[in-house]
């Protein structure tokens, strides 16, 4: 996309100077461009990558998180963690979280987006309402649900006389996930709606003329058209599922009896309760690993899409 000055008339005598002019101009352009990208990169690297690398190193030590008494212990942290049944529970919970978030909010998002597609007049109204939970802080959302919904004394569950799901091992994870899903699906509605509106209208009309039912139109026209969006949102969901922390931490702290533990809360407990930061770092590495897998997958799939 780099354009240059109007090409100089090519003749044996004048070429070298023109070429030299173009080269320096190009180089200056590239320098400037690097300078434009630099601030974002530098900031990110200094604040995220360098501590990240340090954490990576700590994962192979027995650092307590205090002081500088550090001993290199190789992969022992990883061995201990992989042998810990609580880790298996956390990983399983992250995967459950992933499955939940790749299905329920997506379905709700697509459904509401499709319904709003043709209804221009009420569209803004509904979009604003659906986005409200999304713009509120996790702290606010979690505490609202905990205080006035999940509370056995004074909350909705208390009123109905049902034991709140946060209290039972079988449902604690879902209780936390429910609040995060409530907070999140509105965002998907907006995104999918935006993507659906980009579907070429003539394709849709052609399909209808051919007599396709609503469902068939959706499946064969709309869905393929928003593929790239679905993919991007899917990958973001995968990455964030492995990083899940806020809602579990605020609502159940991973309990009762580790039933809602996710890798994020598992790592946090190592760092701040038992003075075993090496282990916390090791868990962090594992969390990033899964996220990385997902993002590599995404980059390769989207590259293929670009080529297509």
């Amino acid at each position, binding site marked *: 996309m780099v354009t240059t000055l109007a090409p100089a008339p090519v003749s044996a005598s004048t070429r070298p100077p023109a070429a030299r002019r173009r080269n320096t101009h190009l180089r200056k352009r590239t320098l*400037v461009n690097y300078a434009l990208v630099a601030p974002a990169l530098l900031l990110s690297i200094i604040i995220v990558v360098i501590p990240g690398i340090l954490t990576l190193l700590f994962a192979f030590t027995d650092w307590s998180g205090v002081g500088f008494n550090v001993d290199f212990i190789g992969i022992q942290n990883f061995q201990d963690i992989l042998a810990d049944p609580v880790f298996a529970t956390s990983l399983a919970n992250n995967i459950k979280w992933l499955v939940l978030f790749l299905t329920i909010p997506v379905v709700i998002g697509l459904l509401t987006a499709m319904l709003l597609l043709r209804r221009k007049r009420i569209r803004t109204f509904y979009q604003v309402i659906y986005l409200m939970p999304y713009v509120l802080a996790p702290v606010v959302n979690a505490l609202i649900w905990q205080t006035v919904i999940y509370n056995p004394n004074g909350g909705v569950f208390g009123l109905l006389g049902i034991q709140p799901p946060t209290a039972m091992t079988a449902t604690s994870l879902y209780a936390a996930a429910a609040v995060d899903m409530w907070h999140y699906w509105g965002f998907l509605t907006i995104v999918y709606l935006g993507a659906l509106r980009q579907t070429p209208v003539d394709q849709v009309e052609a399909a209808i003329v051919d007599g396709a039912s609503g469902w068939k139109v959706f499946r064969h026209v709309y869905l393929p058209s928003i593929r790239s969006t679905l993919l991007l949102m899917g990958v973001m969901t995968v990455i964030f599922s492995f990083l899940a922390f806020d809602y579990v931490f605020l609502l159940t702290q991973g309990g009762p009896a580790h039933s809602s533990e996710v890798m994020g809360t598992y790592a946090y407990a190592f760092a701040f309760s038992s003075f075993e930061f090496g282990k916390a770092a090791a868990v962090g590495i594992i969390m990033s690993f899964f996220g990385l897998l997902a993002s590599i997958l995404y980059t390769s799939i989207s590259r293929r899409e670009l080529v297509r």
Partner: protein
Amino acid sequence: MTRALKGLGAQLILAVFAAIALIPLVLVLINSFKDNADVLSNPFSLPTSLSFDNFVTAWTYGQFGQGFVNSILLTGTTVIVVLICASLAGYVLAGQKVKSWPAIMVYLTMAMTVPIQLFIFPLYSAVAALNLTDNVIVVGVILAAINMPFATFLMRTFFLNVPAEIEEAALVDGVNTVQLVRTVMLPMVRPGLITVGVIVGLNAWNEFLISSTFLQNPSDQTLTLGFLTMNGTFSTDIGTMMAGALILIVPILAVFIALQRFVVDGMASGAVKG
């Protein structure tokens, strides 16, 4: 006949989901005016009188006055830093103007997979060594770095939507890169800037883990942290908790509704191209 039914069905579904989104917020609203005993007996009952006692308690105890100021400073810093860096980087990446652009994209994607709660120790040590703890601006910069990849991706998408002809025309006119960006490209992605600004601003305003670690002094705490502090003490005073929550919710919703056009349109188009 079926068409009308379908229409009705659709409206019903939309309304049900709207209710799901709103009911918890409505509960906050009505219970913030109620005395705690009333809340305990029935959280769904309407308040009998509009007493502002809960709000006063929440405001004083959560130190919301100072919290507001700190939140604004923090969010402002984050948004400004992110908008400047991410828009410039987004421009470069959209145009593939540096050879290593795929590597940069990969780096940014990877940077998003990082669990922040584990970087607190090394980061804190460095910041403390420089004597920069309890500094809202510093936390703003940290949050900017954390939000940078996502913001850069979004800005890149907006720049991708700018027709190439505009840039080429400007270049033919002989402007240099800086002028090009400043006078031509940025104005074209103004809606994108607002969208990214709002999304990143929201993230910064609502953040609690990093803020709570780097801002220990009560006078440096943000609004969100002040509310979190209330939780331990007022867990049994539901009315006051709800009042505190409402104080936090109202400004966010107000800003959101005012700028909703940008947020909605921006989220939609930004995420589409990927």
